[in-house]
Structure formats: structure tokens, C-alpha cells
């Protein structure tokens, strides 16, 4: 099965008054058609910049080198008008902040119809305005209804009320569902979900994850999150990022239950709480992306550091189905 998305050696940088921030340093990632891949990591690891780069929305960052091949085309080479046909249409995003992603001045119905208008007419202002003012779009309403059915909403009464609501009248969980519907209406090849659970309370979280999990049957997905639960419920493969690099990558049930990279281990055990058991030991601050030391970016904080970690940057090594960028997993043994 060919890869729908192939990221090769991606380097993204930001020029700041404090120096050059290397947000992504050599990221390699494959997403095959029909897969759901999770990108896990904490803030500052580069996961946000990574998915923004897929949408060419990484400004003021610059894609310095590398390639992003989507559906056969290298999108780093596309012009802006060409990119517009990809962004939102072929690759759709469900943003993290559902409170601000929706326009507070328009009802849900208007915003969803706008999405359809963009899909069909290429987003020309005249056509969007034209659609909003005319009242009959039975075909489109059907489409909206179908999408919401897929998301688990079948009640006619409930749906009508939802469509008439303004964003501020809805709870977080509902808004997220509207955003997912909006993305689905674009009929994308790839759906990116940015931190789908962070802004939700626990009761809605489980439902939301279930929705995403079921969506995978129709769509290829990329889930970006630091939440272990979210990744576990929705993804078949997982890539762990740290300091702008992918440090571990493989099938989700392997990586999440048996993490190999020392950082993945810390990240995953930090989110497991067994009563009466110890919490993880405190450790020193994570590295910043400006003064990246040579060698492994994690070596200063790594509990299992060996001498060569200091000056030799680890390449990914295979350990079964999992690839780990750590000297401890070299075939020949740690240096």
C-alpha cells in the first residue's frame, strides 16, 4: 500500500531575536491510506509545526529543506494558489481551540453551508454570499444531516436545534463535533486532529475519541496530542516526538505498552497512575530548540545515557516493528 503522505527529512526553522529555533530537524514520517497515525509529544516538541507544515501554515517558520509528498505531489513546491486547493480540501484540520475556531456571529448552519460553498466554488466571496442569502439547499442539508448521523446524531429535533444555534450556545464537545463535521464536509483525503481532547471535560472526551475512532473507517487520520488516552483510542500507529525529531515510531499497542526510547518511557509512565505506586522521579528541564547540543537532544535529561550520546546523534534503529532513535538499540549494541 502506497503512502498517502510521505515526509522526508523535514527541517523547519524560525528566526527569532534569540536565535534560530529548529522546530523540526529531520522528520521522516509515512502515513498510508486508511491508517490513523498519532503524533505524541509535549509542547515544544515540534508536533504542531509538523502538521502546520503539512498545510503550509507554518509561517513565520520556514521549511528549510526536506519534502512532503502528498498523493504523489511534493507540496513544499506548490505555489500558494495550488496549495489552496489542497489546504482544507484534500487535507482538513480539526483545530484544538473549538472556542475560537468558529465564527461567533454566524449560526452553525451558516458556517457548515459556507464550508460546502468553499468546497464547490473554490471559496469565491460572491458565491458564499449568494448561498447564505438564498434559502433552499435541500441537497446540502441532506449532506449535513448525513455527516451528523455518522457522528452519532440522529435525532431530528436535536439536529434542528443544533443547526440554529450560535457557537457560544454550545458546549465544548458539541463545538468540536461541529468542527469535525465541517472538516468532513470538505471530503478530505487526510484529516488532522489537533489535540482533540485537551479542551474537553472527561465525560465528553470518551465520546469524542469514539467518534474519531470510527471516522478512521472512512478516512486517513493524523492525531496530534500529548494525551496518551487519545492516542491509544484512536491510532493504529504512533510516532513520539522530542526536540523536533521523531524518537520512536511503530504500532500503537507496541509503543504505548512497551516504550523503548527513554523519553517515551517517561512520557508514557507519567500518564499512568496506579494508586500506591510511585510517580515518576523529577528530572531536569527539557532542552530548548535554539542551543541544540550535539549528539542526542535528550542526553542531558536521559536516565540511561551512555558516553556516545553526548556527541553522536542517534539514527533510527529497528527493534521488531518499532523504530527507535536511540543508541541503546543499535544492532551492534550501544557504543
Amino acid at each position, binding site marked *: 500500500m502506497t503512502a498517502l503522505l510521505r515526509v522526508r527529512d523535514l527541517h523547519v526553522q524560525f528566526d527569532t531575536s534569540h536565535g534560530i529555533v529548529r522546530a523540526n530537524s529531520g522528520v521522516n514520517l509515512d502515513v498510508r491510506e486508511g491508517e490513523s497515525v498519532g503524533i505524541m509529544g*509535549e509542547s515544544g516538541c515540534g508536533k504542531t509545526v509538523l502538521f502546520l507544515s503539512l498545510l503550509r501554515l507554518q509561517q513565520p517558520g520556514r521549511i528549510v529543506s526536506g519534502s512532503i509528498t502528498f498523493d504523489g505531489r511534493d507540496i513544499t513546491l506548490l505555489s500558494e494558489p495550488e496549495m489552496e486547493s489542497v489546504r482544507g480540501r484534500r487535507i482538513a484540520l480539526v483545530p484544538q481551540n473549538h472556542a475560537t475556531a468558529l465564527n461567533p456571529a454566524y449560526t452553525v448552519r451558516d458556517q457548515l453551508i459556507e464550508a460546502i460553498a468553499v468546497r464547490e466554488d473554490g471559496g469565491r466571496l460572491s458565491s458564499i454570499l449568494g448561498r447564505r442569502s438564498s434559502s433552499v439547499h435541500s441537497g446540502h442539508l441532506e449532506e449535513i444531516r448525513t455527516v451528523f448521523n455518522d457522528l*452519532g446524531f440522529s435525532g431530528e429535533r436535536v439536529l434542528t436545534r443544533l443547526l440554529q444555534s450560535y457557537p457560544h*450556545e454550545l*458546549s465544548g464537545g458539541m463545538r468540536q463535533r461541529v468542527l469535525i463535521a465541517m472538516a468532513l464536509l470538505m471530503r478530505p483525503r487526510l484529516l488532522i486532529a489537533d489535540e482533540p481532547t485537551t479542551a474537553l*471535560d*472527561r*465525560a465528553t472526551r470518551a465520546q469524542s475519541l469514539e467518534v474519531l475512532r470510527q471516522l478512521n473507517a472512512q478516512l486517513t487520520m493524523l492525531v496530534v496530542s500529548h494525551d496518551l488516552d487519545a492516542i491509544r483510542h484512536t491510532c493504529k500507529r504512533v510516532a513520539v516526538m522530542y526536540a523536533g525529531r521523531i524518537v520512536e515510531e511503530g504500532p500503537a499497542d507496541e509503543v504505548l505498552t512497551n516504550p523503548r526510547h527513554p523519553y517515551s518511557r517517561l512520557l508514557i509512565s507519567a500518564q499512568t497512575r496506579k494508586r500506591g505506586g510511585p*510517580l515518576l522521579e523529577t528530572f531536569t*528541564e527539557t532542552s530548548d530548540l535554539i542551543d541544540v547540543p550535539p549528539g542526542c537532544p535528550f542526553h542531558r535529561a536521559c536516565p540511561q545515557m551512555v558516553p556516545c550520546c553526548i556527541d553522536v546523534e542517534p539514527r533510527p534503529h529497528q527493534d521488531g516493528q518499532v523504530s527507535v532513535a536511540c543508541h541503546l538499540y543499535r544492532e551492534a549494541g550501544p557504543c
Partner: protein
Amino acid sequence: MLTVRDLRKHYVVGHGPLGRFQHPDHVIRAVDGVSFDVVEGEVFGIVGESGSGKTTLARTMLRLCPATGGTVTFRDEDVFSMDATALKAFRRQVQPIFQDADSTLDPRQSVASVLEEPLLIHELGNRGQRHERIRNALDAINLSPSLLSRHPSELSGGQRQRVAMGRALLLEPSLLIADEPTSGLDPLVGTQILSLLLEQRRERGLSVVLISHDLDTVAYAADRVGVMYRGRLVEVIGGEAFSTGALHPYSRVLLGLEPGSAEQVLEEGVHEHEHVLETGCPYVDLCAHHLHKCHHENPPLREVWPGHFVACHAVR
């Protein structure tokens, strides 16, 4: 150690140009008759969703905002009727740690100044002794002394929260009220903070009121847990039993022990701005087990097992 009885904090909200004078009965009952005890040395967890009133509870307990009714007693002294001297002594003993250290630290103060402030307010020691204490505090919170000259905007979220914790611990309080100490932080960093908190608690014999919406954290750390819903405590249960043995319908949905329907999610959203009924159980609209009397009678918190209290008519 700490006794809260029937604590109430109501906000009068009015609509229309005359505001509160026009519709005086539009009251938001942020905290509506909360009673619980905190025993010396325990970690008492309080969980609830946003809007349940947990943060207002923390502020009102600390007398940072005036209560509408009820009492708070700390070591047999009535907090709300304390004079300035007694209140100052109370503040030394009971310290908060709030969520979002970004706003609890003055952007113009250096870390050194932030940590020195409590010592200066309570006149604890001369300059040398203060510096000694600050150095010890830095050790306890695992922060490098090189950060003393930095300002909050130059620190990471985790570092800021640790400074806030250090500031609270410098007074050597006996009770910490930690309101969402880890939300907004990455899981790894948040766990570090939690770990620090519990370590300090062990070493100093502190009592902690841990307020959080993260059920896993509370289930892990708390000796007893209180569940809040719309300003009321609906259940108080031992920490060990919490994850599986909660009995109140809301607690069970919260913990994922029982499902809430998709309709319920929409209803919650659309009704988000409605106010609580004066009588009757606040959860009655969404409760799968409600009885007829739940509409009229607010269920009291009753002990159904030793140490396990539930406010629900349907629970025997």
C-alpha cells in the same frame, strides 16, 4: 483541622439596563451549601467539571472573596470573623496554589523577589535568614539558583508553577489548597509538579486540599474525595474506593462507569446558561435514575457506608 459548614457564595446577576436591581432573583449559586471536613495530614480531593464551583469554593474558603453564608473553621477558630492579626496568622498556615501560574506571578517581579515576598510580609528573619530559606525552597522545588534573577515571562510553565509552589511553602503552612495545580501543563511536567507536591507533603506532614478535574490524579493521590456538581457536594468517598465504588449518578457518569447519552451532551451544551432550581436536586434534568421527589427535594448528604456520603434519593 478545617471544617466547612454550609458554605454559600451567590452572585446576583441581573439582565436589562438596571442590572441587579431589575431582576434580583437571577442568582448564580456558585457554591450552594457545601460542608466537609479536612483532617490533619490528609489529602482531600475535590473533583468536578468547570462550572461546578470548585475554584469559587477555594477562594471563599480562603476568605479571598466574601462568602454569602456558612462558616469555615480552622483549628477551632472561625475564619470569617477573624480580625486582621488573626487573619494574617491564618494566612501563614493556609496557603493556596492556583492554576495558571502565569497570572499568579507579577510579571515585573524577579523570581527572587517573588520568593522573598512572603518572608517580608510576615517579617520572618533578617536578610541572611531569608536568603537561607529561599535557597532551601529552591532545593525543595528543584529549581536552579541561576533562575533567581529571571522574570516569569522567561520561565516555562512548569518552572512558573514551581515558583508559585515555592512561594507557598516558604511560610511553612500546615494546609495547602491546590486548585488545579497541573492543568494547562504538559503531562510530563504536570506529573513532576504533582510528584513534588506529594513529596513536600510527605516531608512536612502537610494537609492538602487538591482540587482538580483530572480524575486520575485525584484517584491516585487523595485519601478522601468530594465530588462537586453545580455548587453542591454530591458525594464524599474514600480515595481507594473512588474509581470503582462511587454511587452518585453524576459521579458514575464522570468516572465513565455509566454512559451519558449523546442527547445529554447536547442538552448540557444548550442549557449551559440556565440557572439551578431552588429546590430539588441539581442533577435531576440529566439523571438517568431520577425519582419524582428529586424535582422537589434537594437530597441531603447522607452516610450510606462508614465514611461514604452520597446526596441522592435513589441511593439506599
